[in-house]
């Protein structure tokens, strides 16, 4: 867990809280309250269009929103937005790419780490030098996860991380996520698969019409 800045921590927050969401709302969803423990996974299920992605995007501060989000005792507003997003990394359900070849999306110095993570997720060895245009949706999805895992952010906001994957790849992704949780990474997971929510999540919510409900 390492050192923590406890200034400004409310009494109600236990030492184990990594992410704390208070009165988070936008014109389209909320207000949300959420407490995510260090090394824990909270799973959110719910119908399409109920606001699951919106909620993750609000935490990552990608959409306009009001309310407070704390990470290890630090309020989001006290950090510049890019620094915040490096701590609470959002991985979209549809991956985005800005260069032509896979490896151009990573720092050149980290090639071997990227290759190792890619191999763990069952990606073919030559994928790093492949043009983005030739990748399948599932390959892109796993690579976007690699991209987010590489800097080891304390919180991962995962939006349908295994949506387009086959069963074997799902198992690999989940194993890697479990491993990261064991070393203190906290995960907020949006998934359509109730079994995956069961396998990964220690806390479960259902999103219904822009509100979080406990099932």
């Amino acid at each position, binding site marked *: 867990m390492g050192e923590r800045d406890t200034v400004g921590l409310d009494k109600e927050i236990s030492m184990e809280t990594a992410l704390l969401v208070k009165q988070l709302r936008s014109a389209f969803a909320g207000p949300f309250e959420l407490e995510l423990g260090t090394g824990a996974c909270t799973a959110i299920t719910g119908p399409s269009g109920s606001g699951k992605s919106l909620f993750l995007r609000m935490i*990552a*501060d*990608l*959409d*306009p929103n009001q309310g407070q989000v704390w990470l290890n005792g630090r309020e989001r507003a006290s950090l*510049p*937005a*890019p*620094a915040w*997003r*490096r701590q609470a*990394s*959002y*991985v*979209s359900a*549809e*991956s*985005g*790419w*800005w260069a032509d070849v896979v490896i151009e999306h990573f720092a050149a110095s980290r090639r071997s780490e990227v290759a190792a993570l890619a191999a763990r997720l069952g990606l073919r060895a030559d994928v790093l030098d492949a043009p983005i245009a030739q990748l399948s949706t599932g390959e892109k999805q796993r690579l*976007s996860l690699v*991209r*987010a895992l590489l*800097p080891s952010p304390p919180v991962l906001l995962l939006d349908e991380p295994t949506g387009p994957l086959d069963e074997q790849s799902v198992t690999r992704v989940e194993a890697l996520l479990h491993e990261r949780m064991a070393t203190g990474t906290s995960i907020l997971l949006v998934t359509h698969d109730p079994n995956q929510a069961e396998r990964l999540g220690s806390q479960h919510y259902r999103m219904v019409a822009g509100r979080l409900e406990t099932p």
Partner: protein
Amino acid sequence: MTPVLLTPLDISIAASLIILDAALSIWLRLRLHRQIAIAAARMVVQLVAIGYVLRFIFSLNNPAATLLLVLVMVLVAAREVAARPERRFKGHTNFGIGFVSVGFATFVTAILALTTAIRPQPWFDPHYAIPLAGIILGSVLNSASLSLDSFLGSVRRERQAIEARLSLGDSYREAIAPLVREAIRRGLLPIINQMSAAGVVTLPGIMTGQILAGLDPLEAVKYQILLMFLLSGGSGLSALAASYLAAWRLTDERQRLRLDRLR
């Protein structure tokens, strides 16, 4: 050699070509004869009107009147820039971007030319200032609207890529940079084409006009070269301003991509 002054009869003979166009349209059922007639009439009325306006402003020889006319021209150009892109901002932002980029580029290049190269006495002499501003405006308008169109089109297409970079902790500036570069490039292409083709593929209008008016071809060429430099400078400035202003309007203090500000 003195300029050949045209008589109304000379122009009427040329006008018969419009009748020829209209006749073609009727004969081939192009259904364009109404539009041809209206466009021709509009052109004549607009040009005669601006002729009188220019004559009036020239006779005033008042810097405020000159500035006012140039401002009106900039406003009309800004409206064109705002209307051109397929994607638009909500509210009047498109117009604002058009006005600032076109106005800034036109004033900077026109004033530079008037005070250093052409140097009329006084430097704001409307005989020089107004036609010069007009030529620069045409080119600058083109660049600004192409840049704005390119940026607003690509930003929506590249949304996933931009937000992926933001999510990984890149700044908005870094995430948007490739789009801004592409937009500026698009804005500069027409003037690059124009310069490469000048004298080989096309005889530029100003040069042709001056030669017709009796100026020595080499003198006319010098003017044209000066103008091309001014136009490329103006295009660069307006493409830059339009692209950066649009990029700036699409973000906020938390470096989000604010596509909700587009229609």
